[in-house]
């Protein structure tokens, strides 16, 4: 195969994200369109920039701010092409949102903590909520609002994070765009750095 030029690869990237529809890992994209880490990073940044134009109806949803995603864990990061929230009004009639059910107080509470502080372990979540969360988390997993992955530091436990489906429903490009995101991060950090000792809760 001849070396593709950059525009051709940008086209490939757009076509791939369009075909799959779901979130794709960076590794998968790199393999399918045949680029390495640095080139993928450049392509994604360029695509993101092009999409910022007002005449474009789409945006990239990612695991975090794009420039920060190309660290040692880059291969597992995900990206998805989705419509911009400002177009939701005209699209509502076409796509029925599956997430019309109201959230119970327990779901809402667990969901917001996972959204703001994910990836978060169940025990940490339970400490913050002050209540056992096995079944609430199970329910959120079943509804596809949160996802889990094995905790690299604790073989028998999982870490929970907001799913792309949740972020789409909330209309943000990544969890860092949630309102007052930084404020809540700092709040938690200062709480946990306080001299008090956490008794082994739960």
């Amino acid at each position: 195969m001849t070396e593709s030029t950059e525009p051709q690869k940008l086209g490939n990237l757009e076509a791939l994200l369009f075909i799959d529809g779901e979130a794709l890992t960076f590794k998968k994209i790199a393999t399918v369109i045949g680029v390495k880490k640095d080139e993928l990073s450049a392509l994604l940044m360029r695509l993101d920039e092009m999409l910022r134009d007002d005449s474009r109806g789409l945006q990239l949803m990612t695991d975090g701010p794009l420039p920060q995603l190309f660290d040692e864990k880059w291969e597992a990061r995900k990206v998805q092409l989705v419509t911009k929230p400002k177009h939701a009004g005209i699209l509502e009639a076409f796509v029925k949102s599956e997430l019309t059910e109201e959230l119970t107080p327990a779901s809402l509470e667990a969901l917001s903590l996972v959204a703001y502080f994910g990836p978060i372990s169940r025990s940490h979540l339970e400490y913050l909520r002050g209540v056992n969360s096995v079944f609430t988390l199970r329910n959120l997993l079943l509804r596809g609002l949160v996802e889990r992955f094995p905790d690299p530091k604790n073989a028998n436990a999982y870490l929970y994070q907001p799913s792309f489906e949740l972020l789409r429903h909330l209309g943000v490009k990544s969890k860092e765009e949630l309102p007052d995101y930084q404020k809540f991060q700092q709040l938690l950090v200062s709480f946990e750095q306080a001299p008090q000792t956490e008794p082994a809760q739960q």
Partner: protein
Amino acid sequence: MAYEITIQKFSGPLEALLDLIESKKLQVSEISLAEVTDDFLKYIAKRELIDFATLADFISVASKLILIKSKSLLPDMTLSGEEEAEIKDLERRLKLYQELKQAGRLIQDRWKSGEHSFARPYFMHMTDVAAIFYPGTTLSLSAVELSANKIFEAFEKLAMETETIKGKVISLEEKISEVIARMKQVGESSFKNLSGEKSISERIVLFLAILHLAREQLISLEQTANFSDIIIKHQKPPTPANS
């Protein structure tokens, strides 16, 4: 198979506690915690509002509140360093919880805002792909069997969670009964020192709430621990709380 979803008033004990404090327009502090203890216990006593999985956590908070309350009613009662730390921790966590509740409100607003993004259905072209069979190299009979075994191990773990919760409820009951026994000891010696009708009536309300709580637990857990009997025998409460 569908989950039964019941709308509960509170997501957990911290929210219930905070609600009680805020409804009295108080700040989170040891004093306000002592003040809402009776209401909190009454809330637990109405067991139908709390599901089993979260009961242990409600009782855990209740046991700390009882300590706080006892301390405020009975100045002679000294708490261990660990108990003091538990009280401080509850107060601190409640303050954090109060702040974090904001996050829930923000998520709720966005959830309802209608500003959603939409994605294309997964792999819309899938129907174009011809039927194929592609098992990969790792799929074997033993891999399937191993995986099935793992699933059932996970089921057992889930069942154990339930047992753990049950065990926790029971041990907390014991802890509460210990606290009450201590309070009774201290109380007998210091009752005469307590002045004013209000303090005494407050103690009675507290006691009744505990009795009620204990009775409810015995019913639902089918526990034969004679916790309530002991109390009755010694205290002779004036109501048929132990029907």
